[in-house]
């Protein structure tokens, strides 16, 4: 029996004598996906432990992650602190940061003793129950597919050794995918900036570790990427860099850049370093800033371009990537930017970042719509990457208006 069904049953009992009862519906399903994670919700549920144990209150966790609290004969002032705790936990989420004090998007209250409220809540609860049914059916249908994507055994120290071993000998050349970053100026054809080379992880996983979810530990995954780097360098190292028209970008660990494999790679690249962009991850950079500084200077001295990857809109609130002094900064386009067009603080922050870093070093990526491009252009950004750009590039190639190649990445 689902919690939704239990709730409906409870409601039918309350209907007989609703005096003193009220309900609070907390719309956690409206949180951003990054905040809607299971373990977050579990912790939010525990906030109510004390209340549920010591007063006449019941908490229901819905399939869609919404919370419903049913109380009897409790002062509203005594409930507020609990709701506020949940609100504080998600204080970075737009759901809780309502500018208008009369509008509360997180919670809806119902006085069940009032006929009107009772009816409204009953229909809300019924809707939740219907949604739950749909979700259960979907889950069952997608069970096998789900298994493919998010499930599987976690990556542990135990299976890591074997996977790492396999990674060293598995063919990966055919798993390298490309995505183009282009420069857009209003009224002009897009100009090529570089083509990012990356490994198709889902397919790689199929090949080296079917049944293991490689993403359960950020640290162990990062370890695997170090092995992967070496393989990628040897594959890319077979290119003829002298004749190469288009600049390429590669994702590497700082450790790799400082290793002998990279020294060999530099020898192959020779005078063509200016055609290569090295993408470094924030998590790797923060783990050892000294090494980053050293690697950056070394790369830039040799003529490579350094790109800081893994910056999302949220991260911009907490540090200014321009202080890392790279050639490029990739910021992921996110719904956050759209949503908060009226809340200007995030936008201001971003505008500052762009100004500080220089317009020519910013790349907006994960660009999935024309709106994203327009938004970026308005801020002075001219370099873009993402699905939407892929379509543009395809269209340009088909119409034979090839993007003008600039051999130097920039």
């Amino acid at each position, binding site marked *: 029996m689902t919690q939704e069904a239990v709730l409906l049953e409870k409601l039918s009992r309350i209907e007989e004598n609703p005096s003193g009862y009220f309900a609070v519906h907390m719309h956690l399903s409206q949180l*951003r996906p*990054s*905040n809607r*994670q299971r*373990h*977050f919700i579990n*912790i939010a549920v*525990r906030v109510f432990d004390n209340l549920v144990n010591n007063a006449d209150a019941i908490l229901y966790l819905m399939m869609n992650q919404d919370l419903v609290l049913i109380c009897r004969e409790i002062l509203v002032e005594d409930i507020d602190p609990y709701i506020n*705790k949940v609100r*504080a*936990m*998600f*204080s*970075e989420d737009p759901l809780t940061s309502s500018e208008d004090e009369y509008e509360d998007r997180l919670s809806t209250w119902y006085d069940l003793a009032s006929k009107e409220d009772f009816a409204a809540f009953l229909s809300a609860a019924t809707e939740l129950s219907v949604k739950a049914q749909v979700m259960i059916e979907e889950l069952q249908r997608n069970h096998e597919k789900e298994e493919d994507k998010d499930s599987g055994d976690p990556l*542990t*120290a*135990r299976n*890591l*050794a074997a996977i*790492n071993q396999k990674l060293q000998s598995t063919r990966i050349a055919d798993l390298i995918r490309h995505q183009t970053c282009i420069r857009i100026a209003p009224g002009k054809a897009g100009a090529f900036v570089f083509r990012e080379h990356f490994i198709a992880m889902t397919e790689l996983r199929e090949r080296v570790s079917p049944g293991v979810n490689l993403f359960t*530990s*950020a*640290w*162990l995954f*990062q*370890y695997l990427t*170090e092995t992967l780097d070496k393989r990628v360098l040897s594959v890319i190292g077979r290119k003829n860099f002298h004749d190469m028209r288009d600049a390429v970008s590669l994702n590497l660990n700082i*450790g790799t850049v*400082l*290793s*002998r494999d990279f*020294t060999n790679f530099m020898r192959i690249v020779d005078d063509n370093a200016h055609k290569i962009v090295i993408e470094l991850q*924030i*998590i790797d950079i*923060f*783990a*050892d*800033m*000294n090494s*980053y*500084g050293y690697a950056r*200077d*070394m790369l*830039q*001295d040799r003529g490579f371009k350094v790109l800081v990857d893994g910056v*999302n809109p*949220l*991260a911009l*609130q*907490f*540090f*200014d990537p321009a*202080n*890392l*002094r790279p*050639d490029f900064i990739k910021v992921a386009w996110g719904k956050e930017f759209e949503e908060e067009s009226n809340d200007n603080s995030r936008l201001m922050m971003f505008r500052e970042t762009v100004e500080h870093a220089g317009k020519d070093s910013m790349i907006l990526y994960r660009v999935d719509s024309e709106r994203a491009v327009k938004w970026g252009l308005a801020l002075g950004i001219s370099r873009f990457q993402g699905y939407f750009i892929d379509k543009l590039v395809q269209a340009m190639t088909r119409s034979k208006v090839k993007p003008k190649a600039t051999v130097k990445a920039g």
Partner: protein
Amino acid sequence: MASQPDKLPSQEKLLTDYVRRLEKLKDGRGLAHIHLSKLRPFNRRDQHIRTAAQNFDQMVKDMHGQLFILKNADLFFFFKTAAKPQVETVVQKIRFLFGDDPLVEEEGKDGREFATWYDASAQYEEVVQLVQGLTEAEEKRQTEVRNRMDARQRLKEKQKKGEPLTPSVLAKVEEALSRADLSNLVRRQFICRVDAKMVPEQLFSELFISIQDLRETILPGVNLVSNRWLFQHLTETLDRRVLSMLMKTDAVSISGDISFNINVRTLLSDQFQVFDDNLSAARRGAIVIELQKEDIFSDLSAYLFAREFVQTKGYRLCLDGLSMETLQVIDRERLGADIAKIVWHPNLADGGDEVQAMLKGLLERDGPEKWILCRCDNREAIDFGRSVGIDQFQGRFVENLIAEDGRRRDLLKLKRRIERSSEPQDDEEEEDA
């Protein structure tokens, strides 16, 4: 925030470009090559070189010349011949700066020179060769450093600290950990307020597992920290063990406020929930949770959520492991951490006025209670910290201060007892209050 050093191309590269362009305008120009690279190392620190270079500021501003500061600390100043007397004065000033260095004292002996002068027009080829030679030497140096860091460093680490950690060794370590009794590996170090007289006042103590001893106990000969990512993963296992150990209060006799390091992921796990359930609200206020910056930035949403969660519960959060470099990028206040720890390193003192000003600014903004200087191994660390306004310290030197202070108090007590015993004993209740 500290001002930004030059952004893109290296000075070597700029110098090469400049010399190439010089070919067309070499008439009426000269070059002074000042050999600061030959100074003794302690005279060659960054701030010395910067101070020396600043002497050229006015001439550069007046468009009389162009200055290049190379990685090896040598200065190259190109000037219009008309301004040569002024350049000579500046070089003389710089020479005085380093008056006690053998380079200046022994100038003239065995062809030693503080500065070499060139006529750009007559000696253009020589200048080109000189610059090329230096640029190549710098490139070679970088390759060597990297290769050394690579092979030599790896070998040295291995000999000193044991075999590197590999996935299969990690698996063994984790298994051993699940059985090992860690309570005798727990170490404790105090965070103290240290006053001008070097008297420590204990504020709270950090509990940590001695990685060195852990290695000796479970897998001698393996260097657990040799791979950053595998070690980070290992710390998650350690977190869980530490939490369960802390719950058994008899395992470690803990008094006073404590702190410990933990991963964000662990804070959001069931183990932490259980740990939290077993604490009284008052005890939570006495606990400082220390988080690592790379952990925070690996999943910011998780950090923000965890931060709200633990701070509402009453715990305090400490941002651990900041260095001179990270301080310029990461802001404690923006991250909403209650306290931050700066790791002592002599480069903080060598950083000169810029670093001093940056730290002073932070301390003035936040107040001294927000900052701790940790890993203080010597008095220099404390002196430096106090000079920028830090008064909370942690490290071996602080532990020594505590021991010393304890001895002093014991002596004082002893002395008082002796004094008292020689007095007529009429107020005994006062004894050992």
